[in-house]
């Protein structure tokens, strides 16, 4: 008993008081900035990216495809830099594309959020996670959102065991052929209205697996996606802020 209390005491305060303004330790690579007015060999830059995330005319990085490896910033430091801004979630797919010269915070487009989402889930959102070819890292980060550091439970956001208890699905992975039908089963089992969140590069675009005959991304064609969360894997703070933004709960 006393031993346990001692351990408890030794932990001190571990939670992050403000998940919106906290700073990520170290050299986190978040929202990138492509500097305008610096000329580089754009074709070579495009060719360098292992994820085909870089496009030209205008020069842009698609956060839905980016693995955040930072190779482009190492090769062209005067042109590309990654900020420590972890708020990268958006509800519109095209808005994940960062164009040359853009250096604005990414904020959810409130007008494009279905009204019932904020009305019904604004104070309590229960999510069921489905991994469909995810490599395990996104899954571990989603688990971490519930630990004592990030503690999403304090916002009324929780992961639940059954789709029947859930208000929506968080999908990770490129959607492997073998999981495609099971994903649909789980999605269909969630009562309406429901949300779908794509967490991580693989889920958003398929990543390096996009063209593989072993994945079936067409299952996503007819489903409304409510939130895209970039990252490889998605950082817990990207998740928390993205979901809070979707629910209209951000302070800023």
């Amino acid at each position, binding site marked *: 008993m006393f*031993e*346990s209390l*001692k*351990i*408890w005491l*030794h*932990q001190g305060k*571990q939670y992050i008081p403000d998940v919106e303004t906290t700073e990520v*330790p*170290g*050299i*986190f*690579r978040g929202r990138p900035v492509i500097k305008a007015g610096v000329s580089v060999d754009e074709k070579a830059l495009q060719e*360098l990216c*292992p*994820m085909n995330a870089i496009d030209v005319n205008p020069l842009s990085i698609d956060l839905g495809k980016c*693995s*955040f*490896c*930072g*190779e482009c910033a*190492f090769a062209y430091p005067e042109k590309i830099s990654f900020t420590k801004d972890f708020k990268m979630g958006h509800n519109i797919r095209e808005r994940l594309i960062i164009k040359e010269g853009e250096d604005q915070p990414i904020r959810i487009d409130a007008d494009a959020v279905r009204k019932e989402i904020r009305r019904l889930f604004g104070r309590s959102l229960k999510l069921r996670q*489905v*991994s*469909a*070819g*995810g*490599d*395990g*890292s*996104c*899954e*571990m*980060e*989603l*688990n*971490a959102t519930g*630990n*004592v*550091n990030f503690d999403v439970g304090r916002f009324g956001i929780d*992961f639940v*065991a059954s789709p029947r208890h859930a208000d929506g699905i968080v999908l990770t*992975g*490129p959607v*492997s*052929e*073998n*999981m495609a039908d*099971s994903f649909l089963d789980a999605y269909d089992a969630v009562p309406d209205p429901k949300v779908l969140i794509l967490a991580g590069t*693989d889920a958003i675009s398929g*990543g*390096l*697996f996009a063209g*593989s*005959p*072993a*994945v079936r991304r067409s299952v996503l064609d007819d489903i409304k996606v409510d939130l895209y969360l970039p990252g*490889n*894997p998605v*950082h817990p703070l990207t998740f928390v802020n993205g979901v809070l933004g979707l629910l209209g709960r951000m302070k800023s």
Partner: protein
Amino acid sequence: MKVTNNQVIRLADIEFLSYDNFFSNVNEALNHDEAHCVHYFAKPNPDRDGEFSLFCLIANDAHHDIDLLASVINKRDELQSLTAQHLCLHPFEREMHELYDICFVGHPWLKPLRYSHDRKAGGDIYDYPFYEIDSEELHRVGVGPIHAGIIEPGHFRFICEGEKILHLEIQLGWQHRGIENLFVEKKKLLQRATLSENIAGDTVVGHATAFAHIAESLAGWNTPEWLEIERAIALEQERIAVHTGDLSGICTDVAYQLGNAVFGRLRTPMINYMQKWCGSRFAKSLIRPFKTNFIFTEQLAEEWQNTIDKYKPDFVEMAEQMFDLPSVLSRIERTGIVTKENALNIGLVGMPAKSSGLLRDTRKSHPWGAYKDVDFQPIVKTSGDVYARARMRYEEVLASIELIQRLIAQRKETVMTDISDAPRTWSAQPESLAISLTEGWRGEICHVAITDKEGELALYKIKDPSMHNWLGLALAVRGNGISDFPICNKSFDLSYCGHDL
């Protein structure tokens, strides 16, 4: 022929035996406890219909070498199954059967391994032929592919007598992404390096190091000592981070909330350290063939020591309490036992093998890079239960901390060399085979590459330790209550995507 870890062999130098000779050689090599199969696969010979080359790699831990045995067969030949002699070969023959329709006569059950997209027999993953027992007194419990927690998918089919598990069959393949084929298709070095980091998201350093060694050895590039030391530091740090997280998971599964919370939060500074080093909590982007973007600086060394100084007292305090608590011990002692005999039979590797009294650790038996020079002794437990696998993690964390301290000291004494003239693209010698073994936190990782006439990849084979160890979990739960399954599962913590590839 005998090869060593990270060696490249010209295909022309490999002796291809008749299948009968191949069979007896493999059979004989595996009769020794210190030998085990690290990979066994087939490569289609494109010019001849139905013809395949078989490659079997058997590591000998006592001699520190790997026996490369090869044969050329036609799939219409009647091939005696080696699995019938050595159970540890079961997934490899099943894979060859699934991919190429090669039939192994006498294999206990040539079931589909992962319902890969290119399997010959077609069919649907939902049509899997489960083992059944016809009885009025038994019942089946099916779990998955989607599990209750946030975890990768797999299907578990239990046959139970009341609460007791008589039999567990684990059906995998749900995570299959065709990653081995993508290694061949994606030509850029950086794409392949990125793929290697995504084989199993919890073993980024382990798999990326194996790939880096393959690329470097095929290019004939001598990896400098300082770079190998940095990679070893990363590998040990990955071990510390995952083990800490697993101890949290084990506490969750025995409803020990304090342990769950404390180990969970202790994992955070361990993965955040990776982020400080390379910008990713999972060390994605840290390991690159022929280079590093993130040199391990004096400042990082100091930062590591400071992080550990804060972590270690809390970690030890929590672990000592956990392993002293009757309510925890009663759940993990004598639960989920794998005997040494079973471990040997099924070819268990890594942490679960060492927990069952079987010393299998490639850092010691087939060392590479920095592990050749650094002094350390792998930890071995004998009880083979959840307790042993949990305790193993506690002790391995402490051992890895010491190991990193030694590696950092060594790194400081090692002169950094200029590697700016190293290859920047895939540049491999033609018609060769390369093998690389690394010891991830879970156990032995094996990558094998075969190049064509132009030096391009003709075949890339990956083996995560999970390939051997999933059967270990299935055996461990026999005779246990079904409510003990989660704790047994967590104590192995195997990879789904690492198996399904």
